[in-house]
């Protein structure tokens, strides 16, 4: 009889069959790879993985290594500044462009252009711009301001901000276009209603428009945060982690340990720590976002 409800498992059969290779890949590569990495982070693997257990030794060593601590600090400084500034700059640019200005397409392309470059190019470009002998400093000095000094990449205390400038230059365009798309999605009549209500523009942005753009903000946040956590190539191209270890970052630590210091165990431990950090942020957020959505309907 047809009154028995067909099993959920066998609905859309062909779609499910088509998805199997992807599901298998995802399970093997992501879940399997992750589990494997975590397991081997408790071993004494050197050049090659070896199942020789050392307990938490790798983690103890990791957290007593100055370079790792500096890397984490740098990631915090870079990440927080990047997150705040890239959103502020990107949103302000988008809001300006949204004022129906002329040459919108040109301006949008110019600002988005850096995003199309690889981090290696960005890093090299900004290495030159910030170089005292060729870049900004030498140009300003050639105008007659002889004592002008601007060489962040050569000062260990602020070198990470030199990287931040390059990161912002590259990343703001993407945030801008995403925000602009979000702004364009806002019904113009809402703006009109707010004007009739006498709400000033900045208040309309903060209390009405930005809350309406929540989905765009979340997408952008995910893109920006993943970009921050995995930052590696920009550092390699722009500073190589220097001066000294002042611009080291966790991803570079992992890479160097695994492929240069022939210390796989240490690299696995470091990458497990990175995973843990991301998980600590993502899991509570996912609970808030998706756990609550059933109640909200």
């Amino acid at each position, binding site marked *: 009889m047809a009154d028995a409800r067909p099993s959920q498992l066998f609905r859309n059969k062909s779609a499910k069959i088509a998805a199997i290779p992807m599901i298998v890949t995802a399970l093997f590569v992501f879940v399997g790879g992750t589990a494997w990495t975590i397991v081997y982070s408790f071993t004494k693997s050197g050049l090659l993985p070896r199942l020789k257990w050392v307990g938490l030794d790798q983690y103890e060593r990791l957290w007593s290594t100055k370079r790792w601590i500096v890397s984490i600090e740098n990631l915090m400084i870079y990440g927080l500044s990047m997150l705040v500034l890239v959103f502020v700059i990107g949103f302000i640019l988008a809001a300006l462009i949204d004022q129906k200005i002329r040459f919108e397409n040109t301006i949008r392309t110019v600002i988005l252009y850096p995003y199309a470059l690889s981090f290696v190019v960005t890093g090299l470009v900004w290495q030159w711009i910030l170089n005292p002998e060729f870049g900004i400093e030498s140009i300003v000095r050639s105008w007659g301001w002889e004592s002008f000094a601007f060489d962040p990449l050569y000062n260990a205390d602020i070198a990470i901000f030199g990287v931040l400038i390059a990161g912002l230059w590259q990343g703001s365009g993407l945030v801008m276009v995403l925000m602009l798309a979000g702004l364009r999605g806002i*019904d113009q*009549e*809402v703006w009109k*209603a707010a004007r009739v209500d*006498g709400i000033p523009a900045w208040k309309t942005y903060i209390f009405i428009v930005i809350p309406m753009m929540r989905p765009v903000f979340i997408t952008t946040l995910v893109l920006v945060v993943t970009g921050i956590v995995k930052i590696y190539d920009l550092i390699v191209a722009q500073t190589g982690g220097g001066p000294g270890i002042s611009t080291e970052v966790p991803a570079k630590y992992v890479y160097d340990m695994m492929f240069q210091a022939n210390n796989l165990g240490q690299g696995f431990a470091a990458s497990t720590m990175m995973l843990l950090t991301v998980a600590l942020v993502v899991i509570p957020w996912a609970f808030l976002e998706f756990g609550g959505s059933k109640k909200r*309907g």
Partner: protein
Amino acid sequence: MNKSVEIKNLDLEFGAVKVLQNLNLDIGKGEFLVLLGSSGCGKSTLLNCIAGLLDVTAGQIHINDKNVTWAEPSERGIGMVFQSYALYPQMNVEGNLSFGLKNAKLPKDEIAKRIKRASEILQIEPLLKRKPAALSGGQRQRVAIGRALVRDVDVFLFDEPLSNLDAKLRADLRVEIKRLHQNLGNTMVYVTHDQIEAMTLADRIAIMRGGQIMQLDSPEEIYGRPVNKYVAGFIGSPSMNFLEGRIEGDVFLVGDLAIPLAGYEFASGNAVSGEASLGIRPEHVVTGELVGNAPFQIDIDVSLIEPTGSDTLVDCEVAGHPFRVRMDGQAKIKVGERLRLGLDLSKASLFDKTSELRL
């Protein structure tokens, strides 16, 4: 007449596109004025100019005898309701009603009083704590009206407020808006492309076309004595039948018919002659037993029947022109049948062939 809104020589251009040109309009205190026209004729543009949401190119706008041409929307003493409701989605109904008032720094008890009054009038008290997403279209539009209501203003502007609703709700809310106007006595300016809304709501209708007002009159006048052929064809559903012919003496000649003009009131008072269009509304054609009383009678072949329940529309041809007749829904009639029609020109309209103005 006490004026509530005065528009003087208003021009509005978007770059090179002239949307409104030298438009003049006076709206009386407590009047319900409907701006009616097809899509793109500049109705919303005019309404946005009154609201102050668009900067006018030239001309002046006065509201309650104050020149507000360059005043901010919030300072003009207007409230506005939009087609898409334009509620603030992250705030609940109460928040939507109070946001503007809070921003204007009104005392708390005054805000509470206004919200209470508006929600009683619109029967949205049980919804105050809900977000717009949890409301139906009709409820949302009621909240949007409430947001205009709490502003405690003299002039309400509506931009196609019912166009997003389904037919039944549209009819219900239309009645509510009319009742609201009767109870409050505010001036209301209402934009729509729906002639039923216009006819039922308006004290006066302004028919717009190409950024100009073609006719500004009571619904009866616009229906009964349209000033030109465009208005005549636009108002009325099904639309007016036109016969192209010639006035000669006291008859209208079309094909081999000579229709007597006795009973027609010429706009100038005197009969004219020459090429003209004769406009007859489908509902002004008589059939059945009444035909005998009509001054002019003609037999036609029924070519198509559209029953609507209450009425039946009959398509046929008169002197080579397509012609429609509205009959009672009970009428028994078949395609191919012969039918006798009676025409009485006292309710008809005549338009000049070239200028298309009423004769």
